[in-house]
């Protein structure tokens, strides 16, 4: 879990880091999270998001990791000034219409090297207003800066 800094009375809340007028995109190759456990992955992702950067992650998180990422974000809202949560979207490789052999090969590759045939975009809600996703397209709407 990401360490939570709770502001006590009279204490200043921690702030989201990063320059306000800059937009930074952080590419995270799958190898960077491959050996991490779920907690480590989320900690790494939240560390970047809290610096006001947008992550382009090669691969995707598991459903339980996404749920944990949401839980984690929720605990930080109100405790970190300027943080209102995250926007997240994943786009996966198309497996429709492929043969059985190809499907088995893909699944085997996923087990061996992880799910690399996907791209996940994660950004702080203060920077990314909305992400709309169609099956083959992701559109980012940035907040007025």
């Amino acid at each position, binding site marked *: 879990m990401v360490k939570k800094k709770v502001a006590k009375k009279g204490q200043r809340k921690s702030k989201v880091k990063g320059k306000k007028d800059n937009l930074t995109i952080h590419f995270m190759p799958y190898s960077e999270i491959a050996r991490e456990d779920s907690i480590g992955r989320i900690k790494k992702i939240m560390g970047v998001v809290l610096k006001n950067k947008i992550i382009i992650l090669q691969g995707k998180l598991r459903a339980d990791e*996404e*749920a944990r990422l949401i839980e984690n974000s*929720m605990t930080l*809202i109100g405790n970190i000034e300027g943080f209102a949560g995250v926007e*997240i979207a994943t786009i996966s490789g198309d497996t429709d219409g492929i043969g059985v052999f190809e499907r088995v090969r893909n699944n085997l590759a996923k087990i061996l090297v992880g799910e690399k045939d996907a791209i996940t975009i994660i950004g702080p*809600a203060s920077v990314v207003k909305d*992400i709309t996703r169609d099956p083959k397209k992701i559109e980012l709407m940035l907040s007025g800066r």
Partner: protein
Amino acid sequence: MIKIIRNFARRLFSKFLANKGEIKLGFYGSPNAGKTSLANRICQDWLGEDLGIVSRMPHETREIQIREDVVIEKNGKKVNFNLIDTPGIATKVDFEDFLKFGLKKKEAQSRAKEATQGIIESIKWLDDMDAVIVMLDSTANPYSQVNITIIGNLVARKVPVLVVANKIDLKKSDIKKVKGAFPEYEVVGISAKNGENMEEFYEELFKLVKRAK
């Protein structure tokens, strides 16, 4: 702290109820998809009373709401449900969004805090469901990560899912798009507000029950 203990006790109590043969039916989805509206519609149909308050303002439901012993009858078969209406799951909660609905800053901040706690509770309750209705607003883009995350977590827990596309009474409703986004699931289009297509919904609900543990 009291809230956490109370929620834990409710979850424990709900687990105890599971032994009595009721189906714990969860309502999940994004805020304002119409979860409480559908739960109310079911309660009105079979009990003649509402379960919760409905509002245009997002995150109206910020605590788990349970209605026990809702007996639904279809084709001579009766099933006893515990309806569990959950707060809408979102990846972000900004108190400033509530200001647009006329709330004062402090009220908005308090509502945002409760909303974040509600989302955490909803996620925790995923472990306790026998079957789940994933509620979507058929006028909105169905390819939302929240919907995918909810369904992914239910599949991992082997909880059967029925996708319900709400608000089919509205012009912008696009049920085909919802079906296209979730080709592996049964999708039933309804209007929880005016009760449109509820017969088909109950039929699909009974099919869902058959797949429940």
